[in-house]
C-alpha cells in the first residue's frame, strides 16, 4: 500500500530545530558572543565582509556564528542581507596613498620611503601549534609607534615616474563606475566591473587560478610591487555640500602586482599592472586577485589567449562561491520528474537495442 509522503513542513521545522541545537553544542560550554568572533576570529570576519561585499563586522560575526563557521554559508548570509539594502550613492575612489598603514611591504625594493612595515603577519611565524594558546595565554603588549600623518607613496608611483610602469587607467573617462550588483554583467566586461567581480570572488578559486598562471598557464612574470594593509577614509560627494562628506574609515588590503611585459603589437615593453583590493586584512586574496586581474588583461594587452586564467567569461562566471555552491548543492533537490523521463528513454533504448530492430537501424539506413 502506497501512501503519498506528507509532513514535509514538520520535517523541515524539526530539521531546523536540530540544526539550532547542534549549532549551540554542549550547553555547559559558554556561548560564543559576536564580540568573541569580531575580536578573535577577525580574519574570518574579514573574509565574510569581502566576499559578502558588506563592510559590517558585527553582521559578519553574526553570519559566522549562525553558519557554525561554514564560511561560504556565512558569506551567503551577508550577501542575502546586503542585497536588500538601498543604494544611497557611490563614494569617491579611496586614496590608498593616504592610507593609515599597518603593514606595507614591497618585494621589488630593499628599502623605500616609508619603509617596509611587517605589521601583524603570519609570515615568518613557525607553523608550530602553540600549546600556550590552547591554555589561553595573555600576549605581550606589542610595540607600537604613533601613526604617520604623511602620505605614503605607492611603489607604483615611483615606477610610474620613470615611465617604466604603464600609467594607471584614467578614471575620469568613466565617472560613474559599473555596478555588478545593480546591472547585469555583459561580456566582455570593463575592468571596473571585472575588478568588482574578482573582489567578491571566492578566495580559493582565485588562489588556484592565480597559482595556475605561476605554473605556466599564461605566465605573467609577476613581482609583488607592493602590499599594504590599513585604514582608508571613505568620502561621499553630496550635491548640497561644497566638500566631500567623510563617512568613516574602513580597513582594506591593496596589492599591486608589477608584471614584466615584453611588449606586443598593442603596447610597448614596460611593466604592467595587476590590481587587488579587498576589505579587511586579506593578503592572500588581494594577491590572487591582482594576478588574475593581470591575466584577464590579455586581450587588452594583445597577448595570446592560451590558458583558463585569461578567459574572462570562464573566470568571472565561476568565481562567485554563492552562485557556485547553490548550483552544485541544488543537485540535492528532487529531480525525480526529469529522472523519470530519462528512465523511460533508457529503458526504451535498451529494449530496442536488445530487439536489434529499433528505429535506430532504420535511421541509419
Amino acid at each position: 500500500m502506497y501512501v503519498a509522503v506528507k509532513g514535509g513542513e514538520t520535517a523541515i521545522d524539526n530539521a531546523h530545530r536540530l540544526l539550532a541545537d547542534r549549532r549551540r553544542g554542549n550547553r555547559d560550554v559558554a556561548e560564543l558572543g559576536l564580540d568573541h568572533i569580531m575580536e578573535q576570529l577577525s580574519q574570518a570576519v574579514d573574509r565574510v565582509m569581502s566576499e559578502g561585499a558588506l563592510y559590517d563586522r558585527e553582521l559578519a560575526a553574526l553570519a559566522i556564528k549562525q553558519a557554525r563557521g561554514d564560511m561560504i554559508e556565512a558569506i551567503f548570509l551577508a550577501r542575502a542581507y546586503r542585497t536588500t539594502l538601498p543604494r544611497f550613492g557611490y563614494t569617491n575612489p579611496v586614496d590608498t596613498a593616504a592610507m593609515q598603514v599597518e603593514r606595507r611591504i614591497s618585494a621589488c625594493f630593499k628599502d623605500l620611503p616609508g619603509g617596509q612595515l611587517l605589521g601583524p603577519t603570519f609570515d615568518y611565524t613557525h607553523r608550530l601549534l602553540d600549546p600556550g594558546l590552547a591554555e589561553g595565554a595573555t600576549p605581550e603588549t606589542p610595540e607600537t609607534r604613533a601613526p604617520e600623518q604623511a602620505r605614503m607613496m605607492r611603489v607604483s608611483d615611483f615606477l610610474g615616474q620613470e615611465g617604466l610602469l604603464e600609467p594607471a587607467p584614467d578614471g575620469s573617462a568613466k565617472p560613474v563606475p559599473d555596478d555588478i550588483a545593480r546591472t547585469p554583467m555583459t561580456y566582455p566586461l570593463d575592468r571596473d566591473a571585472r575588478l568588482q567581480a574578482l573582489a567578491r570572488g571566492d578566495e580559493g578559486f582565485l588562489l588556484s587560478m592565480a597559482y595556475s598562471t605561476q605554473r605556466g598557464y599564461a605566465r605573467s612574470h609577476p613581482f609583488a610591487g607592493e602590499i599594504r594593509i590599513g585604514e582608508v577614509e571613505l568620502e561621499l560627494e553630496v550635491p548640497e555640500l561644497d566638500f566631500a562628506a567623510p563617512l568613516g574609515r574602513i580597513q582594506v588590503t591593496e596589492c599591486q602586482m608589477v608584471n614584466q611585459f615584453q611588449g606586443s603589437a598593442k603596447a610597448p615593453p614596460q611593466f604592467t599592472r595587476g590590481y587587488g583590493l579587498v576589505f579587511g586584512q586579506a593578503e592572500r586574496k588581494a594577491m590572487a586577485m591582482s594576478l588574475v586581474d593581470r591575466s584577464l588583461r590579455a586581450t587588452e594587452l594583445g597577448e595570446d589567449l592560451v590558458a583558463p586564467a585569461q578567459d574572462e567569461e570562464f573566470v568571472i562566471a565561476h568565481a562567485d562561491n554563492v552562485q557556485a555552491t547553490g548550483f552544485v548543492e541544488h543537485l540535492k533537490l528532487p529531480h525525480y520528474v526529469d529522472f523519470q523521463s530519462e528512465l523511460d528513454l533508457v529503458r526504451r533504448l535498451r529494449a530496442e537495442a536488445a530487439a536489434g530492430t529499433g528505429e535506430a537501424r532504420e535511421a541509419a539506413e
Partner: protein
Amino acid sequence: MNTEARAFDWAEAPAIATYNFAYLDEQSKRMIRRAILKGIAVPGYQVPFASREMPMPYGWGTGGVQVTASIIGPDDTLKVIDQGADDTTNAISIRKFFQRTTGVRTTTATTEASIIQTRHRIPETPLTAGQVLVYQVPIPEPLRFLEPRETETRTMHALEEYGVMHVKLYEDIARHGHIATTYAYPVMVQGRYVTDPSPTPKFDNPKMDQCPALQLFGAGREMRIYAIPPWTEVTSLDFEDHPFAVQAFDRPCALCGADDVFLDEVIMDDQGGRMFVCSDTDHCNGRQQAGHAGEQET
C-alpha cells in the same frame, strides 16, 4: 490546504536586520518589473537582469522567487510546486518564505491560485486567463550545452542561427532512432526565439502552446528573465519525418486512475516492486475526491 491571508508584520524580526514586503527592496523590484515587461514584449528573449542574492541558494529557485516577489500583492493567492507536488520540501520552503514575507493567502488548488511558482512541472489542470505561472529556471540558455559562451549564444539568437540545435537533435535520431531529449526540450516561441522551457518533462511542452495564462521564467544565478504571453504559439522543435511526441505511460495512475498525466515511479520494496502515481498531487487528490480510483484503491 489553504491558508488565510494575514496582516504583514515584521515585528517579530530582530532589529539588527529588517526586510521589505516580499523581501526585495523596491528598487530591485522595479528593475525586475522592467525586465518582465521587456520579456513579455519580446516573447522568448532572455532579458538580462541584475539578479539579487536571495535568502535561499542560487539554483534553488531564486529566479522564480525574485519574479514572484516582484509581482505578488496582498490580493494574490499563491501556489508553489516542485516536481508537480505541493508538499516537496523546497516547495514548502518557498511557500513559507512568501507566507512570512507577504502574508498572502496560499493554496494547493491550481484553480484557486493567481500565481503558481513551479519547478520542473506544469500543472495537469489547465491554467486559465489571468493566472501567472512562474518557472524556476537553472540554465535559461537552450544553446548552452552546445556552446558554453554567452557571447556566442547571444549572437546566435540575434541572427536566428539555430542550425546547431537542429544538428544536435538530428544526431540523436541518427544514433538512437529518436530525439533523446526528454526534459528541457527546446521550444520555438512565436516563430522567433528558441527557448528553454526549464527542465520540465517534454510531456508538458504542449501545455505551453496557446496557454491562457502568462508564463514568466526566472533564472537567478544566470541572471535572465523571459516570458511567454498568453495565447502565444509555442512549438517543440522537431523534424517532418520525426515529429515531436510526448512520453506515454503504459498504465494509469495507481491512485486516481488518470491515464493522461505524467506519472512518478515509486519503488515499493527491494524486490523490484514499483507503482506509478500522479506527479501532480493536487490533480490526483482532486480526482480521488471526485470518485476516481486507480488499481490500488479498487
